[in-house]
């Protein structure tokens, strides 16, 4: 048996007339982080719910931690943990009681459940908040507790459905580090996100799905390459020189550069030595440049190109409510 944390084959699911999943193939080696990226309604949550044994697929197979999700759901449940889109902790009881409750449900003796709870509270910086009712927690604390609760049973595969939705950037960074630590411990992580930045920051592999189908898969750099070549951007020091710079770019690449605001020009390049030739030509023409760069397309552009839907706002800058 290959050492996959999870693999799916031709997984399909319909709800009435809506096709949520239309033949999804995934294979994620153990200990890797898979970022599942897609617009709303692409099938991300359906996929997670099937893998977490909450939904049965109509067709296809899925194995999680080596067990078939439809034929051996009980075995799968021993090795997985689910962290919901909305923090799935009990608001009415305190953080420590939440952790102990899950420990007891996982058959830890009372004392071991308490010890594990304290261990996780410490690891997630919640020791002091442990005896407070979860309803009084901030959004970031709740998310951390949610992740802590997921880890009580030392799962081999963790599903995180939009883990950082609604968190402010500082708190998000903190949560990301905790997710990276999971991968480093050999836990296989599947996370769904609408934030391209999040997938880029966390995932070893990104799978883009749209209308229930995988439209692209690969490492973040592979995906960027798959979508297209590099782009050279030039910003001139003197606005009056923008015309001459545009002529240089057009001359070297054979394409009309795109002018954006603030005197910036961008043009796609195909040959490896285009950048060098552009630099040399600009120098010869005595065009002073304040910025010159060669870059891969951003994930937003990848997304747009693959799904033909406008890219999603890259990251939440709004403060948590």
């Amino acid at each position, binding site marked *: 048996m290959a050492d996959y944390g999870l693999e799916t084959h031709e997984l399909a699911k319909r709800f009435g007339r809506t096709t949520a999943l239309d033949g999804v193939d995934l294979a994620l080696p153990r200990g890797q982080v898979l970022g599942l990226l897609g617009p709303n309604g692409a099938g991300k949550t359906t996929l997670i719910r099937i893998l977490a044994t909450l939904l049965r697929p109509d067709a296809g197979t899925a194995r999680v931690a080596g067990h078939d999700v439809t034929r051996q759901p009980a075995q799968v*449940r021993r090795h997985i943990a689910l962290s919901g889109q909305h923090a799935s902790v*009990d608001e009415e009881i305190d953080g420590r009681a939440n952790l102990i409750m899950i420990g007891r*449900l996982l058959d*830890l003796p009372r004392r071991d459940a308490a010890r594990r709870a304290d261990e996780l509270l410490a690891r997630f910086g919640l020791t002091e908040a442990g005896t407070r009712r979860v309803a009084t927690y901030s959004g970031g604390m709740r998310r951390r507790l949610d992740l802590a609760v997921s880890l009580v049973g030392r799962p081999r595969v963790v599903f995180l459905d939009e883990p950082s939705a609604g968190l402010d950037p500082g708190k998000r960074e903190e949560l990301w580090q905790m997710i990276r630590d999971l991968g480093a411990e050999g836990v296989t992580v599947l996370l769904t996100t609408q934030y391209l930045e999040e997938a880029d920051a966390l995932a070893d592999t990104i799978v883009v799905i749209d209308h229930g189908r995988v439209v692209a898969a690969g490492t973040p750099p592979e995906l960027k390459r798959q979508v297209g070549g590099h782009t050279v951007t030039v910003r001139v020091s003197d606005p009056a020189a923008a015309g001459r710079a545009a002529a240089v770019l057009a001359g070297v690449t054979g394409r009309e550069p795109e002018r954006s605001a603030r005197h910036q020009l961008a043009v796609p390049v195909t040959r490896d030595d285009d950048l060098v030739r552009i630099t040399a030509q600009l120098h010869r023409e005595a065009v002073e440049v304040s910025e010159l760069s060669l870059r891969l397309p951003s994930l937003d552009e990848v997304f747009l190109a693959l799904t033909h839907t406008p890219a999603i706002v890259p990251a939440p800058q709004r403060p948590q409510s």
Partner: protein
Amino acid sequence: MTTPTHVLASPHRSPRWLRHSLVLARRSLAKTSRNPGTVVNGVVTPALFLVLFLSLFGNALAGATSDYLQYLFPGILVMGAGLTGLVSTGTNINIDLKNGVTDRFRSLPISRLAPLLGSVLADIVRYLAAVAILYLIGTALGFRSDGGLAPALAAIGLAVLFGFCLSWITVFLGVALKSAEAVLAFSFLTFLPLQLGTSLATPAAGLPGWLQAWVTLNPVTAAMDACRALLNGTPAGDSITTTLIWCAAIFLVFCPLAVSAYGRRE
């Protein structure tokens, strides 16, 4: 196939499903202490019926209010031990199902029965609290158990067992129906005839034909008659047996239905 290492050699003796149910019942009870609505509801509604019927029929029916109290009160206890809370049990389960916590429970290696049984067991504790308070009210009004302590405890036990078994109908509705509103409507429709057409206020024998037929058939009548006989030390006839048969039948039909609906729910 090797034995999975995580199946811990458990030091516990009780079956896993029961242990898990008790853990989840405790979770549900922890919430009650903050939100005692169920207990209050379980006390107030039967207490209102008690006072209402006592003042309406106290003299007319039995000749003396104290005699009527002896007749009425056991039925009130059966109301408190479950009947009143039935609608909220199903509605609460339905609301809980939409909560992220339920997804977490369903992805844990625990029996599908445990979350439902845990919820019902917590209700039993709430019913017991309601029954205890009702008993104090009844005693204050002058009710005396003539049958002795053991039959009185048996009566309370029977009433709570009846409430427990009846709960599975509303649990099934709570799991099988989509919205809490539908659960509320269906539970109300199901339990209204059960709650109203009973021997609570007057014996079935004195009712007109069609109503008498229903009241005699109603399992709630059997439970009330049985509790009345136990508490007053009068002959129970076959009311205790009939109640136990109804309990078993309702439980054996609706508990598996509820658990299977819970497993299939998406």
